[in-house]
């Protein structure tokens, strides 16, 4: 195997996949860090976002123009879901909310199946052969995916670091009681968090869809790699989620060197169990809840 082959067929796909995982993992880590529960409906929310974008594409938009609309739509869905199904549980043990999110996952999936059916779909027909950049093969959609991920991460980081409400979100994540004592309205922060998380869900679902096909189970199937990425990076750490996502993505594509291909799906879980065993706070020293 030449070095270029290694780059083109193992490393680059791993990085592209890892970027998609990263976008999902950021959302998971935000919910985990700020609202303090494991959000199991995350994957199916991503599916919903991907299919909303598909509906827009069918209506005539280009995929990349459909993305922001889908992000806004799922942001609203996330806020509504929170109001309907999570909010009233906030005084009860967090695990109740985890369970409620499982129920939401099933409901969202059923909605997608009833409305869009169960056949695999694509945003565009045909295939795209890659362009050659000094031996490295990349498709436009992969470049756009990477660019979008960078944009999202930089934008989110700037927002969290420098904006008033971004800081309020960090404060809630850091010390919710003290944030309340300081006059931070946690309902507003919760709503804002869901808006961002919903938008991120839609983005990750869209990227998964544009690099492959869309199907009703797609989100559920990437949920666990995304959780693995979030915990690997350190719960509550945006940059950790990105790092974790890249590691999980690359590890999955590299697993073929060690394990039979059937075990590819197990890579994320093995990484997850290992990190829990040796370093439960994650690589970047996140929270242990």
């Amino acid at each position, binding site marked *: 195997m030449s070095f270029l082959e290694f780059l083109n067929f193992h490393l680059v796909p791993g990085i592209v996949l890892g970027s998609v995982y990263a976008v999902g993992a950021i959302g998971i880590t935000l919910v985990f860090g700020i609202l303090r529960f494991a959000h199991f409906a995350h994957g199916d929310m991503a599916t919903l976002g991907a299919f909303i974008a598909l509906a827009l594409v069918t209506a005539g938009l280009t995929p990349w123009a459909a993305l922001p609309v889908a992000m806004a739509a799922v942001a609203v869905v996330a806020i509504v879901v929170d109001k309907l199904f999570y909010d009233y549980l906030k005084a009860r043990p967090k695990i109740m909310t985890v369970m409620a999110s499982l129920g939401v996952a099933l409901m969202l999936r059923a909605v997608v199946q009833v409305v869009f059916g169960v056949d695999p779909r694509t945003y565009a027909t045909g295939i795209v052969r890659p362009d050659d950049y000094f031996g490295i093969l990349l498709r436009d959609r992969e470049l756009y995916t990477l660019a979008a991920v960078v944009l999202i991460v930089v934008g989110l980081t700037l927002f969290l670091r420098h904006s008033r409400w971004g*800081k309020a979100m960090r*404060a809630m994540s*850091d010390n919710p009681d003290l*944030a309340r004592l*300081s*006059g931070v*309205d946690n309902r507003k922060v919760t709503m804002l968090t869901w808006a961002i998380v919903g938008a991120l869900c839609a983005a990750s679902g869209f990227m998964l869809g544009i690099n492959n096909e869309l199907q009703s189970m797609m989100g559920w199937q990437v949920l666990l790699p995304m959780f693995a990425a979030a915990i690997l990076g350190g719960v509550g750490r945006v940059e950790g989620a990105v790092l974790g996502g890249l590691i999980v993505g690359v590890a999955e594509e590299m697993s073929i060197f060690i394990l039979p291909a059937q075990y590819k799906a197990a890579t994320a879980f093995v990484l997850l169990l290992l990190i829990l065993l040796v370093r439960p706070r994650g690589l970047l020293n996140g929270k242990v809840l």
Partner: protein
Amino acid sequence: MALLDMKDVRGGYGDADILHGVSMTVGEREIVVIVGPNGAGKSTAMKSVFGLLAIRGGHIVFDGEDITAWAPDRIVQRGICYVPQVDNVFREMTVHENFEMGAFLRRGDLSAAYDRVYGLFPDLKAKRKNLAGDLSGGQRQMVAMGRALMLDPKLLLLDEPTAGLSPKYMEQIFQITRDVRDAGVSILLVEQHAKQALAFCDRGYVLATGANRHEGTGQALLADREVAEMFLGG
């Protein structure tokens, strides 16, 4: 008229009462300390002021307005700030961001408030970009007080600010508390180190089993035989 006037307050966290009638006042520019044995309801009494427990009797009047059973965020806006005993800083935010969060409810130019806080805690000026979680215990306590002072409150509630600190830092915290008082803020604090606290405060209350036991100036309480024997260990 006193700035804060608590009258015969009863209540607790759940169904059972912890406070069985606590009354106290805090005047303008006054340091008032609450002491008493473990389980006397000292912290609970303080939290009742801040709307953190269910009050089932009595009144709390602040600055001429009845604030009994108000929600904390409303009380904050009215001019009372509270520094919890533990977890009282945002560990993953910088010192400066901690202060910024303290002033979350305030709009407009905050430079005067920053100047005042950094003036009170000059040590922190050099560490403004450090994460609060990386500071020493005493410095963290200063960050916590600074955060609370950013809203320019009339009354500051301190819950055992010296817990776990070395005597050197304890002295420093007491000194800062006086500085804050001198800057025009009234202070109500709960203290385990009863002797030292009574020695530096203006007035003190001794609570036991959720009710008032003794009250008076710090010096008077220190001189009281009964207080000395029962609560101060001789």
